[in-house]
Structure formats: C-alpha cells, structure tokens
C-alpha cells in the first residue's frame, strides 16, 4: 500500500503575525516554519501503522507545493520517517492551485490513500481534501480521527455532531484528518535526522493552473480588552457593568 501525505509549510504556532504591503501579504521575516500540525499527526499515524503492522504500508511519501525554502520542513518529514518526498516547485497561491498540483502527482503515480490535514494552521482553508476528491474522482472522508488498516481494508472513525461514525472505504480514497488521529507528533530520532539527507526528494515543476482567488487584505483581531476584577462581594457593580458597559445582559 502506498500513502501520500500532503504537508503544508506553515509558521510556528507561536509566531507573532504581522502583515506588509498595505496588509495584503504576510510578513515572513524571522518566522520559524514547521509542518502543519494536522499533517504532522497524519504522518505520525501512517508511521505508527507501518511500524506496528509490517508489510501493510510499503511506502509513505510526502508532497508539498512550495519553493525551495520549504525544503527544511520537507526534510523534517523525512527525518520523522517518510520514505520519500515530492516538492512541486511553485508558490502555493491558493487551495485550488495546490489541489491541482497534488492531483497531477496522484494521476501520475497511483497512491492508495491520500491524506491531508483538515486545515492548515496559517490560512485555515479547509478545502484541499474536497477539491482533490472532485478533481480525482475518488471518495474522500472528512474529519477522520481514527484510521486502521486490517488485511487491506481501511476502517475510519469520523467526528459527527454529538458522536462518532465508523466508515469502511475502498481504495483509493482521500482521508481528511482531524486531531485525535495520533496522540503527539513524532520527534525525529538522531538516526532519522541523519538518514533524511539520503532520502529521495523529487522536485517537479508545476502544471499551468491559474489561481482563482487573490488576497485583498488581512486584518488582525482586536487586542483583548484588559481584564477587570470586581470584588466578589460587589455583585451590583458586576451586574451594572455587564448590563450597561458590556451590554451582555
């Protein structure tokens, strides 16, 4: 079984977000880049199955749409344990563009399962899995929080309102994974880090696709208002403030 995991190169989740060019572009100066946390969990789950059930998964490949500066992130995925990587050499303009590039990869090389995170932690598009499914004409299952492979059959659990749904699916398919798929992302071992240099990282040129969207502007959320402490005895003042100032009651 061959698995393709789509990985996004995103700013570290503790990054202080700033915008430039009249608030139309993200200021990436001094930013530390990481694998999108959902994608990293997907990779961890695939590796857990590969290790626990030898012979089930033959190959785990990661794919990223990005310029050369995303390669440290890709190398980390290789250090964690992916067998190989593909980088589509293009700026990831929007989700349609990225999905078109990844669909092209899947058309050329048959993967049994394509996994992507439910969203990326930077632009939160949450659209890649669905678009890929449509472009490739294969089923997708969203919000997958559990994935098992038994004798070639794949069982998924997905979050639904108020509970969980178990889904059996045929191959190939797209899994859009949610947190819970793995406990913690794997930390690369020393051996993994050393072997990452020697693993294949194939760079392919993008297919010509127009992006369908453009960023008009970004806004940062308003700073949180200062916390006001009211004496526990002074309920009247609390009620007055909630009623007259916050207008919540």
């Amino acid at each position, binding site marked *: 079984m061959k698995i393709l995991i789509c990985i996004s190169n995103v700013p570290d989740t503790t990054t202080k977000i700033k915008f430039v060019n009249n608030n139309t572009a993200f200021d990436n100066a001094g930013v530390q880049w990481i694998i999108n946390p959902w994608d990293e969990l997907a990779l961890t789950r695939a590796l857990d199955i590969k290790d626990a059930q030898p012979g089930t998964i033959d190959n785990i490949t990661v794919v990223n749409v990005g310029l050369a500066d995303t390669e*440290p992130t890709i190398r980390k995925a290789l250090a964690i344990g992916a067998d190989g990587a593909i980088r589509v050499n293009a700026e990831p303009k929007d989700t349609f563009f990225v999905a078109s590039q990844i669909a092209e990869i899947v058309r050329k090389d048959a993967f049994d399962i394509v996994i992507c995170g439910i969203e990326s932690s930077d632009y939160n598009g949450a659209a890649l899995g669905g678009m890929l499914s449509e472009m490739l004409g294969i089923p997708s299952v969203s919000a997958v929080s559990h994935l098992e492979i038994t004798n070639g059959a794949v069982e998924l659990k997905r979050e639904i309102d108020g509970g969980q749904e178990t889904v059996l699916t045929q191959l190939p398919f797209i899994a859009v994974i949610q947190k819970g798929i793995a406990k913690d992302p794997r*930390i*690369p*071992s*020393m*051996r993994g*880090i*050393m072997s990452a*240099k020697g693993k294949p990282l194939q760079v392919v040129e993008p297919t010509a696709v127009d992006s369908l969207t453009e960023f008009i502007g970004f806004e940062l959320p308003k700073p949180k208002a200062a916390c006001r402490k009211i004496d526990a005895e002074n309920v009247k003042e609390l009620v007055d403030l909630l009623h007259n100032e916050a207008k919540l009651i």
Partner: protein
Amino acid sequence: MNFEYTEEQKMIQQAAKDFAERELLGDVIERDEKSEFPTEHIKKLAELGFLGMMTDPKYNGGGMDTISYVLAMEEISKIDSSVAVVMSVCNSLVNWGIETYGTEEQKQKYLRPLASGMKIGAFLLSEPEAGSDATSQRTTAEDKGDYYLVNGTKNWITNGNSASTYIVIAQTHPEKKHKGINALIIDKDSPGITLGPHENKMGMRSSDTHSVMFNDVKVPKENRLGDDGFGFSFAMKTLEGGRIGIAAQALGIASGAFERALKYSLERKAFGTEIFNHQHVAFKLSDMAVMIENGRNLCLKAAWLKDQHLPYGVASAMAKQYCADMAMHITTEAVQIHGGYGYVKEYHVERLMREAKLTQIYEGTSEIQKIVISRSLLK
C-alpha cells in the same frame, strides 16, 4: 567564520526542545522532590538516539557532531538537568572514551549497547579523598597476571545505580604515581561491587548519585583501556570533552532561567506596569542575555575545535568555568526577578538555581578550570 547552524543541527535542537517540553516538563518538579530517577524518560531519550548521538553509526551511534550535542544539551538542560547529566556522562565520558581509546573487541562488546542506549554507563574517578586532585587515586587495580583485582571506593558517581557499564580509574603501580593508573571497563554486576545509598543532594536530585565500593573485584586484562599506565591520561583527555557537555548543561540552566524570568517580567505588574518596563529589571535581563550569548559562543567554539580535531582542552575549560559561574549568577537573578514566586517550587527557577551550583563543582570545579586556563597562559 560561519555562525549559522546546519539544517541537521537545527533539527536536533528542535527535537531536543520538543522532547524536553513534552516528556520532561510535566513531572520534573515531582521527580526532583522525590529524588526519583527518570527511568522511562531515559528510555525514550535512548530510543531517539540522544545517549549515543556522537558515536559512529557503525557502533549504533547517531554520528552527530559536537555542536549538535551542545545544542541538544542546552535544550534538555533548560528543563531538566538530571536527565541532561545522564546524556552527558554517556556521550562525553563513557562512549567517547571507549570509542577513542578502546579496542575493536571492547567497542563491539561495550560501546554498541551503550551507544544505542540499551545500556547506561558511568565514569568512576572521584574518591573520598581524591576529587580535584585526581592523581591521588586510592582505589587499586592489582595486576594478577591475566586479570586485575580491584579494591577501593569511588564517590559521587552519576548513574551509579542505573549504569550497567563502569569505567573505573584505579592505581596499578603506586610507585609510578599518576603514570601507574589504569582505566578499566567493569560490568556493574561483577561480584564484589556494592553501592552506597542514593545521595540526598541539593540539586539534580532526580539523577542517581552513589558511592561504589569494590571488594576484590576481578577484571579481565582485556578490559583495560589503552596501554598499561594510560589511565590518568585517559581520564584527563576524556574530561576535556566532558567539560563541553557540562558547559552546555550550565548554559541550558542559565537560558532556561532567563526565558522564565523574561516571560514573568512581561506578565507581572508592579506600580501600574509590567515589571519589564522598570529599567532595573530590563537592564538585569539585558545583562543576562549578553552573558548567555557569551557562554553559548564559548561552548560552540570548544565544540567546533573538537569537531575540527584541533586542541580544545583550554577552550572547553573556559566554556565550563564561564558557563557554570554564569549559570549560578543568572539563576540567582532569575529568582530575584520572580521575587517571592521565585522562591517556591512551581516557578522552576529555584530548582534551576540549585542545579546551577553543581555545574561549578563536578567534572572539574571552576577553580580547577582556572588552573587549566592559567597554566595555558604560560605556554
């Protein structure tokens, strides 16, 4: 001159940081209080390859350079020096000693399980009456033809109980003084070895420190490291590298305390503003940042010299002395910035302060480092 880390070095630094924050932070205070050895934590550290990270991959090691080791030691020590010292003893002293001076048979038998982390090592040099003066070894390794008979007591042995493999420094030819000393690899479960109780220490309480007694312990001749009488030189050479590890540990303790003090100074308010906005606190943090940067540069230079196979003994002594003394100062300042909160356990800085003290003492006191440094000035 290139100050930029390689991609691999950055990845190792991040891996160590992730490990420390995810696996060590949660129970570090509790283990410190209970003096509880981090058995499961060390197992995970070993699985990731940190215990043999600098050993050649052909002996199950990670094949990393010393700069990577410094970066990893700093990150682990920011959170938990009791774990970092296990890593330091295994990498710098035991594994390096066997890899550099051991025979192929010794490497196959002892280094492979040590480098993979399946076994832990300990380095037995200090004695009740031979600490800084390591030439005065009272432990004897009597030459009995095809084996050595070892008798004596070793003190303050890190990993004393958790280790399976000891490197023991002992006197074989007292008339030759330090040139009669040998270094022997000894299995901890050899008949005649007994342990003293776990030392009840001020800091690094989660690491297991014991005295080890040898009573007619038979050690095969093939377990000697290097030629007859090489033991003292072996110990001194090994400790030159060990100092880099402890310097990096002290650096980590300092930078860990600094990061906590900086964060606290931006949260805690006094006189209507965050205390960082009071110049005295800001300047204190500024001084701390400069000292930490100095310490890091000294560590990295010593590591770089070692990686280039250039002499690094004086550089490692400078790094160790500066970083240890600096860590003591920085952690004390971090407690001061925290005020009363710094004096209670949940804010970590009092523990870091207790840990810092040991870095001025073990693997060569700050005073011994000054002897090494000052003597080098006359050459």
